[in-house]
């Protein structure tokens, strides 16, 4: 059996915003947001359209609604049927939320299973405004109607 990394669900939310982490209302303390990115990523970098094929994940560590730290993590090789590999990678790295331009049904359900909330913006290529909207609590969570391909 392939084992998945599980981490405790963050019971946090953004004070004053509309977003909640795992549906719990409260005052946010620490949240790690992952953004699939092209090239070297970073706050001034570009987002990757397909999360599984991204070059790196940009991690934004937030504390009380402020950016505390920016790091990047190289992605792992993507293989057909290997949707759970990046799910496992992000869970192992204590990610609480992921912002995607698109995602398939299987990885979306995988992220749900490991307690990572998935947010959606299919339009803007830049990372910074997405992070700003996440902090402001205006970024919508993805629904199954937004998933890619035949898994709809």
């Amino acid at each position, binding site marked *: *059996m*392939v*084992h*998945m990394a599980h981490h405790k669900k963050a019971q946090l939310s953004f004070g004053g915003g509309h977003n909640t982490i795992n549906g719990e209302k409260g005052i946010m303390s620490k949240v790690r947001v992952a953004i699939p990115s092209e090239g*070297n*990523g*970073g706050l001034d970098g570009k987002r990757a359209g397909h999360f599984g094929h991204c070059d790196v994940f940009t*991690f934004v560590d937030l504390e009380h609604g402020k950016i505390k*730290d*920016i*790091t*990047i*993590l*190289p992605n*792992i*090789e993507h*293989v*057909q*049927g*290997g*949707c*759970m*590999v990046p799910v*496992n*990678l992000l869970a*192992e*790295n204590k990610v609480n939320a992921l912002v995607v331009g698109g*995602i*398939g*049904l*299987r*990885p*979306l*359900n*995988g992220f749900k*299973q490991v307690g990572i909330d998935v947010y959606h913006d299919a339009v803007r290529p830049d990372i910074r405004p997405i992070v700003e909207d996440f902090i402001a609590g205006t970024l919508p969570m993805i629904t199954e109607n937004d*998933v*890619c*391909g*035949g*898994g*709809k």
Partner: protein
Amino acid sequence: MLTILLVYEKLTLFASVKDSFVKSGTVNVLEAQTTDAALKIASEISLDLVIVAEQLNTMIGIQFVNMLVQANPLINTALVSSLSPEDFHEETEGLGVLMQLPLEPQKSDAEEMLQKMERIITLMRLPQSKEVTI
């Protein structure tokens, strides 16, 4: 040891695949001839891979894979399909299907599935890559 479930209506469909798995000595093979039976097994036993026929007793294989992904996204799937590779990709995109199988899967297909499973398991077990502060 991998646990693999074969889901089919026609008894002979996966005979070669099953034979190859059994001979490999690395696979625990389970079988179901109805979608209900398959879902019951999937809910009770940790499965590494579910191999699905193109047509099942109550639905087509793609529909069943969709149901399975909703119930347990950790389970890998392979699907028999007469679609062209392009159409198969279009129809199954997002479902994370490991492999499209021909209408009469053979020993070579079984071997390829095991190789792909081994690759995925290796990737899942890779040590964490290092974060870089920027």
